[in-house]
């Protein structure tokens, strides 16, 4: 036992009244007010429940497709409906089930695994969840009204351009999914800041549970992958609505640009889904093996390596599009390289199982883990096959690929998810699921899955293409398709029994033991709505195994923060690397603001889809107003002073600047904005490579004179200087000063003027966005800068309002710091943009 155990942070006996106060502060709203809840245990359950509902709905669509394909020349579904169904099936499974499900597990499990009272932005999580629930349900319902998109889950251009896909169907995908991606990014911000800043004292990065590592990498991948598809959806929607020809070849656009943007997101997306599932497996396997994971460091290395390498594979989805052979070889090599870190994880799990103490326990979670290992490994091997360019040429767009990615996705994500349900259900509900029924569920799902999808390898090798709604008999596909359909129904029977068991378990009393599996990680500490009574000091990766008295110590309030010294919701913020306590974060409780913001954000996008512009704008204004009301209460200031958390440590209850959690969140958001801009720069250069004949000086008007960019650059630089001066001149607490107010207003308006001048310069030169891909890209840059300038305008107004009401001063300054750091970023992006738009064509000729 380590030396520190000789003494505890709070060795004295604690009052039980502290527990009552914690219960009061963290109480979940009752009745209909539960929709205002922000507790991670409540919204996490809602999140996972909604994701699972979408899994069931998309699963029903899969059964409809398999019924249609069971026999040749079938007319159970029409061709048009079949197209809608496979599009909604794929889109729902990827965007509405897989990513939200793992994000939900992060929201639900991370605070418990990190023994935090909650993640740092509970309302942001709640906002993301409600936006996703409302938007997702509306999107899915389009399949009932003949309004669903038909272009496949990847919506390839030119098929999805207005010319070939008239109507609003494709717009539902573009706007609906676009804002669900925003919801995913909101969740990612929460997870990045949560895992880095709300770990328990002592839990350094290298002691963090593997699931937390996997969620950190998952969220980082979302930050860099999702912006590419957000840009893609913006470009495609703008082309469909306003005719800016990004993807129209006759005007210098290129349909393949969509594929690049989509797959730069789409391939990492597979690992975005897989890595958290692998993290869950890495938590279950050691428990069932009753020993620490073999190769913890190797698994972390594998997770990071997979996260990186997955960004170098996107072109392997485009092998048949006529790309230079060296590119093909390059991406083929990267596609095979990613198998190495995946292999490391598989061997670590097998080694841990083999080295079990007293034999590997065969429980329902273990069965699903073993099923995952088998199925995912087969999917991985066929993945290496399709990474070989000649093989890909043969099987591209056939059922072989359908088999491959279902082995990877169902094996790599659904099986671990079901294992998770069985393993962590006692934590979420206090009830165990039935082990006996669980075995039925496993064998039906495992058997049904392989019966359904293994024959598809052969169907594909026999030449059956994907996405066909029917096929003539006698091509050697008839029996294989029938077998696949039978397997799909067997799989569905397994899922149905699981759902029945899930419902049945809720009818039983919540009497599961505290730590039913004998696990070693913190989520199995005694907990309640406030998470753990006190936040433990952590010195190992399996604290419950290394210190059997820890649950009693934590329950007795002998570790850190055993009470609520500020009288509100709070948790400890620790340093990102070593997890040393830094300050106490005060968190918001239940409220309506995030719910109103989410509902009206969803309404804004969905009304825009059906071209109801005025109602959409009204909803947008309401959503922004709700966000501002929500943000108004987020900067409580230092009024509570410093508080004692134990071990003689006194922590401040307020922090601003680079060490504050809100500054970290803004930096994460800037990384997202930066990724989106990099995707834009790639698109600009890509179209220049493809169509130099439409660039300035060739097929388009000459660039505006140098006076324009120089003036714009001066405005951006002067605006930044103004903002910096405003920061230095913020008043002392309790006093007012007009100068910073004027400086903030001037800086904000200066940036808007810079964006307006940029557009005006090109307009007076005769350049129009609808005439060529070059013109479209030039104005698109202003659109991107314009939306950021608009955001800054709102934030400036917010900061000015706080100045006027005495809520912003040189100490209480979080809202200004966030405004300033975003302002500097936008000014820098604007300057880089000037070099690209005004400098590059002059240099490139």
């Amino acid at each position, binding site marked *: 036992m380590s030396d520190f155990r000789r003494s505890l942070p709070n060795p004295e006996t604690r009052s039980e009244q502290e527990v009552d106060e914690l219960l009061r502060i963290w109480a979940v709203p009752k009745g209909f007010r539960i929709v205002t809840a922000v507790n991670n245990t409540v919204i996490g359950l809602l999140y996972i429940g909604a994701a699972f509902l979408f899994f069931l709905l998309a699963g029903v669509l899969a059964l409809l497709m398999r019924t249609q394909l069971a026999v040749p020349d079938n007319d159970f579904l029409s061709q048009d409906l079949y197209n809608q169904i496979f599009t909604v099936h794929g889109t729902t499974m990827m965007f509405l089930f897989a990513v939200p499900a793992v994000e939900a597990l992060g929201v639900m499990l991370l605070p418990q695994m990190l023994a935090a009272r909650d993640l740092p932005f509970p309302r942001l999580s709640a906002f993301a969840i409600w936006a996703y629930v409302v938007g997702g349900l509306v999107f899915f319902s389009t399949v009932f009204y003949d309004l669903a998109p038909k272009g496949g889950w990847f919506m390839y251009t030119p098929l999805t351009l207005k010319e070939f896909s008239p109507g609003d169907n494709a717009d539902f995908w573009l706007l609906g999914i676009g804002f669900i991606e925003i919801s995913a990014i909101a969740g990612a911000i929460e997870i990045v800041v949560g895992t880095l800043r709300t770990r328990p*004292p002592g839990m350094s990065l290298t002691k963090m549970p593997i699931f937390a590592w996997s969620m950190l990498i998952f969220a980082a991948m979302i930050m860099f992958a999702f912006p590419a598809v957000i840009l893609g959806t913006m470009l495609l929607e703008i082309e469909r609505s306003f005719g800016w020809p990004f993807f129209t070849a006759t005007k210098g656009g290129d349909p393949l640009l969509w594929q690049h943007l989509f797959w730069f997101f789409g391939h990492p997306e597979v690992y975005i889904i897989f890595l958290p599932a692998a993290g869950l497996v890495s938590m279950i396997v050691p428990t069932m093996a009753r020993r620490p994971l073999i190769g913890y460091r190797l698994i972390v290395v594998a997770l990071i390596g997979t996260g990186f*390498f997955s960004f170098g594979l996107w072109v392997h989805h485009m092998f048949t599009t006529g790309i230079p052979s*060296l590119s093909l070889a390059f991406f083929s*090599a*990267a596609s095979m*390289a990613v198998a190495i870190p995946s292999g490391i994880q598989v061997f670590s799990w097998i080694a841990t199982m083999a080295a079990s103490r007293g034999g590997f326990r065969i429980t329902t979670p273990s069965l699903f883990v073993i099923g995952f290992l088998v199925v995912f490994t087969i999917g991985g091997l066929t993945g290496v096959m399709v990474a070989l360019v000649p093989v890909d040429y043969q099987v591209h767009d056939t059922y072989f690929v359908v088999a491959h990615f279902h082995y990877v996705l169902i094996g790599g994500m659904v099986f671990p998810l079901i294992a998770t349900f069985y393993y962590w259900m006692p934590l979420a509900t206090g009830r165990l699921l039935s082990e006996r029924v669980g075995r039925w569920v496993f064998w039906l799902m495992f058997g049904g899955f392989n019966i359904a999808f293994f024959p598809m390898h052969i169907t594909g090798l026999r030449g059956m293409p994907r996405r066909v709604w029917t096929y003539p008999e006698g091509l050697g596909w008839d029996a294989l398709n029938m077998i696949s359909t039978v397997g799909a129904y067997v799989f569905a029977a397994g899922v149905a029994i699981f759902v029945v068991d899930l419902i049945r378990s809720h009818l039983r009393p919540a009497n599961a033991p505290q730590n039913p599996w004998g696990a070693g990680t913190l989520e199995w500490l005694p907990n309640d709505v406030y998470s753990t009574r006190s936040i433990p000091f952590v010195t190992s990766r399996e604290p419950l195994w290394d210190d059997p008295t820890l649950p009693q110590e934590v329950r007795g309030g002998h570790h850190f923060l055993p009470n609520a010294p500020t009288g509100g919701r709070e948790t400890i913020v620790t340093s990102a690397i*070593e997890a040393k306590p830094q300050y106490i974060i005060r968190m918001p409780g239940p409220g309506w603001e995030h719910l109103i913001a989410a509902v009206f954000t969803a309404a804004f996008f969905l009304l825009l889809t059906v071209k109801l512009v005025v109602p959409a704008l009204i909803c947008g204004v309401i959503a922004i107003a709700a966000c501002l009301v929500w943000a108004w209460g987020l900067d409580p200031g230092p009024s509570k002073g410093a508080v004692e958390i134990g*071990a*003689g440590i006194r922590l401040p209850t307020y922090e601003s600047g680079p060490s504050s959690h809100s500054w970290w969140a803004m930096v994460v958001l800037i990384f997202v904005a930066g990724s989106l801009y990099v995707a834009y720069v790639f698109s600009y250069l890509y179209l220049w490579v493809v169509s130099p004949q439409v660039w300035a000086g060739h097929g388009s008007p000459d660039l505006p004179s140098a006076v324009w960019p120089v003036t714009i650059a001066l405005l951006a630089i002067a605006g930044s200087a103004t903002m910096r001066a405003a920061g230095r001149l913020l008043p002392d607490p309790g006093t007012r000063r007009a100068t910073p107010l004027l400086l903030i207003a001037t800086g904000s308006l200066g940036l808007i003027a810079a964006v307006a001048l940029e557009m005006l310069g090109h307009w007076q030169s005769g350049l129009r966005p609808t005439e060529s891909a070059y013109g479209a890209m030039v104005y698109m840059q202003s659109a991107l800068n314009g939306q950021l300038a608009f955001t800054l305008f709102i934030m400036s107004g917010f900061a000015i309002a706080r100045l006027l009401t005495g809520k912003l001063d040189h100490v209480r300054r979080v809202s200004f710091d966030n405004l300033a750091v975003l302002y500097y970023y936008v000014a820098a992006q604007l300057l880089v943009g000037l070099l690209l738009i005004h400098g590059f064509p002059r240099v490139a000729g």
Partner: protein
Amino acid sequence: MNRHDDFFPLGPKPSTTGTIFYLLFGPLLWAGQLTVAYGGHTLACVRGSSPELADAIVIVVTALALVALTGFLIWQDRCARALGQPALPARDRATDSMARLLVVLSLPAVLWGGATVGLVAACVAGR
């Protein structure tokens, strides 16, 4: 009452940004190699019509990446200190070993990608 130092002994503190770069040194170099090699050879092929230049870009960037990765393995302690890590023995050994393993993992990825130059002709349409 216990004191802060019993739980968090005073000592050199690792830089947050430095630790991220230290840990991710290998994958970041791999990402740089992929970006320059892919972008560079595409430009050389499409705008320069020069397979030789395309090959040269990939070879040079691969060689530079390999030298940097090998250098990291040889002089890891210096790299660690340059990236804000405390001197041994105060440094976290797990971070050291993860950074090293990530460089080892990146080596074949860089080498594998670069080796394609010797296997296929640049600038020939793949299909």
